């Protein structure tokens, strides 16, 4: 008996331990971490920021294949984000560039990078890095530096981590070719390489090794699904007066197009709904509305901003101004010179193949199209229905119109109203299109039969394509919402300028960014070489290599070169 009890206790303890182990592992197994490398840390407003985003599995540090969408935000202290950039992530990597608006005021800025799935770990898990942006015409530079411990006062340094960076020389003349060799590593890795003029301020610069070593697992929520296919839009349906959550409400989404298109979602117990927005919706006007809203109710749709950060950034600033002004003034001059000589930083080119977007069409069956130009001019939609749409019946009751489809037999009407689409968008009320005459309508498609779109059933469809996007002129109902969808940032790459290719030999060639390659593959067994040219800008340049190996080892290495000239050609 005692032995049996002992055994039972033992099994229970083992099960408890295993359960604890499982819970801990499950929490860490599906967490993501993001690291963002930018080409530099100091910019002049109007310049481009080149970036490389690494989305990693937080536990193994290997590239994550889960999230396909990443978010980058730029914000000033105590302000809303200045820039919001959505990027496409492919096998844990994303690269491209974004332009800093000319209108940015001088000061400290923070770059925040994350995936939607990381919201489960809280905003503290987001990647954060500081940068300095200066207005080209601001010569006072009246802002204070962020308080942080300086890491290295030596401007030019060589790290001893792999891969070794070797250059053919240490000191170069302007417009001279530089050949860089990255030594053998015992692993394959994807790295990004930046060669930029050292500003002397390295305090805010955190390498991928430091960032990932400082990363710790956070309590895990399950509210946010990974954006493993496309952007996920989250929203809520509430009662506008009481702010009570509305359950099982059907939210419809469509956007202007030449074909009726639809997507829908049903709210859960918290009034929440989610929709997957693929590239089809990029940059389009999104029309949200609610289906079958009870009469007299005051429901409202609220959309969650995927870029939303709950807290404002409030960095601790130093008491006195310590920024290296001379460097910033020089940077301003270089940008001004390049602007006046219309010298671009580099050549941009698309690197990712474009995937054809899929339109969620309401129907894909043959329909009979009616072109209004084939008939005599008709004043409004009621006349159109009477004269040229024999299967549609429109009746007026209490100053409002209602539409019904005539059945195939022609002797009875459907019980419910058909779905009305104007310029591809679901319109919740036929009265909104009653003013449209044949002078404003191009084409009408009518489907007489009852149709299914997933679990939704429509009792016929009337789809109107107008001559000049009439849908944009309609007034949205109180339970509808119209928002503009953002674009995902187009992947562009930097191509270093070869000074020999500049036609005007007397034109100045100043650049603080000599080379940027976001996707350099280290093969492990062999050296990797790349080359670029120095510019007329003399100074110390850092060669920075950062990346992640196939087995999840963070790679960070740096070296430096000098560009000198006997004559001081820079106008200070």
């Amino acid at each position, binding site marked *: 008996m005692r032995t049996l009890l002992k*055994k039972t206790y*033992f*099994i229970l303890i*083992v*099960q408890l331990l*295993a*359960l604890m*182990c*499982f819970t801990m*592992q*499950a929490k860490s*197994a*599906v967490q993501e971490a993001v690291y963002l490398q930018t080409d530099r840390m100091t910019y002049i407003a109007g310049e481009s920021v080149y970036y490389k985003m690494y989305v990693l*599995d937080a536990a193994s540090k290997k590239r994550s294949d*889960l999230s396909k969408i990443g978010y980058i935000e730029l914000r000033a202290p105590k302000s809303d984000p200045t820039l919001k950039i959505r990027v496409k992530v492919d096998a844990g990597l994303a690269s491209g560039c974004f332009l800093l608006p000319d209108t940015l005021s001088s000061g400290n800025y923070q770059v925040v990078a994350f995936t939607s*799935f990381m919201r489960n770990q809280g905003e503290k898990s987001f990647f954060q890095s500081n940068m300095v942006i200066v207005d080209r015409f601001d010569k006072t530079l009246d802002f204070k530096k962020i308080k942080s411990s300086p890491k290295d006062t030596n401007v030019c340094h060589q790290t001893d981590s792999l891969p070794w960076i070797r250059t053919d020389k240490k000191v170069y003349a302007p417009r001279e070719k530089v050949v860089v060799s990255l030594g053998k590593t015992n692993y394959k890795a994807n790295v990004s390489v930046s060669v930029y003029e050292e500003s002397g301020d390295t305090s805010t610069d955190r390498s991928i090794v430091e960032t990932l070593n400082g990363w710790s697992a956070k309590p895990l929520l399950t509210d946010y*699904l*990974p*954006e*493993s*296919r496309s952007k*996920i839009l989250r929203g809520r349906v509430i009662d506008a007066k009481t702010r009570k959550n509305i359950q099982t409400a059907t939210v419809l989404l469509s956007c202007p197009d030449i074909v009726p298109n639809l*997507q*829908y979602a049903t709210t859960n117990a918290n009034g929440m709904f*989610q*929709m*997957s927005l693929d590239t089809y919706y990029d940059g389009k006007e999104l029309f949200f509305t609610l289906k079958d809203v009870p009469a007299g109710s005051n429901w409202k749709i609220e959309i969650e901003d995927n870029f939303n950060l709950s807290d404002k950034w409030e960095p601790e600033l130093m008491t006195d101004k310590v920024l290296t002004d001379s460097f910033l003034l020089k940077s301003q001059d270089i940008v001004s010179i390049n602007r006046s000589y219309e010298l671009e930083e580099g050549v941009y080119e698309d690197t990712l193949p474009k995937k054809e977007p*899929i339109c*969620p*069409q*309401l*129907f*894909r*069956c*043959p329909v009979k199209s009616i072109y209004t130009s084939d008939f005599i001019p008709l004043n409004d939609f009621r006349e159109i229905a009477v004269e040229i749409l024999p299967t549609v019946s429109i009746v007026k009751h209490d100053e409002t119109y209602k539409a019904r489809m005539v059945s195939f037999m022609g002797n009875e009407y459907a019980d419910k109203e058909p779905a009305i689409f104007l310029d591809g968008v679901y319109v919740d009320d036929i009265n909104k299109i009653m003013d449209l005459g044949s002078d404003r309508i191009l084409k009408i498609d009518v*489907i007489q*039969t*009852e*149709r*299914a*779109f*997933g*679990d939704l*059933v429509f009792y016929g469809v009337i789809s109107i394509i107008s001559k000049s996007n009439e849908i944009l002129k309609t007034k949205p109902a109180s339970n509808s919402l119209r928002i503009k969808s953002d674009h995902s940032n187009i992947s562009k790459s930097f191509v270093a300028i070869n000074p020999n290719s500049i036609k005007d030999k007397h034109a100045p060639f100043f650049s603080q960014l000599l080379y940027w390659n976001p996707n350099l593959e280290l093969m492990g067994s062999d050296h990797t070489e790349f080359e670029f040219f120095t510019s007329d800008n003399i100074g110390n340049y850092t060669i920075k290599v950062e990346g992640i190996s196939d087995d999840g080892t963070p790679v960070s290495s740096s070296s430096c070169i000098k560009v000198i000239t006997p004559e001081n050609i820079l106008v200070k």
Partner: protein
Amino acid sequence: MKNILYLAFLLICFSISAQNSVGTSISKVDSIFSPKLTGELYKPDTISSRGEQFFNVQWVESSVLLSTGERIDGVKIKYNGFLDEVIWQNTSNFKQFQLDKSYISDFWLKNDMDSTIHFQRLNITDSTARNPSGIFVEVAVEGKLSLYIQHKVSHLVDELVAYKYFVIYEKTPLYYIKLPSNIYFRMSELNRKSFLNLFPEQKKTLSKMIRANRLNLKTANGLIRAIDLMNQSRLY
């Protein structure tokens, strides 16, 4: 010893399940945001009939590959050989809908043996077809030479029995052999002669092969075996 083994087993199980959670997250996303089937209401015939319009009489859980490349799993469908259309039972309202044919690229019906029968939409113009969006065929053999079977059901003359009309349906399968040059041969009757006539240059070799393998070309299985052997022996 038993206890140690038990402990090890539990730990392995749990680590596997933890690793699988990535896949679970993705499949959860896929199931929530799966594309929507579209179609028009299907009203089953109420007229008394003999024979069956459907390839599968019962609703079976199937997978549908859409022409957009998206896939939907776990939908209840039947293939109607008379209309050459796929009928979907919407489990949320139990209504039946005839799916938009041009939206379907492939579908897989589960049969009793727990295996699947693969159907594909071929863009073949059939003058007798009601819908111009091609025909649905069973993929019997895929290779250099492919064999597709259209499980067509034909409406024969109505029969009057005891003052009541019965509609008679009969299975009239059609066989399509696709050549590497994308040319299709259609066979409505299965026999050795019509098969050999399709390949006049290989007639002798094919006759030998049929004899050696004792193929009965009057049956669908015999034809499938013959096409398989032709692919294996690189006869074409």
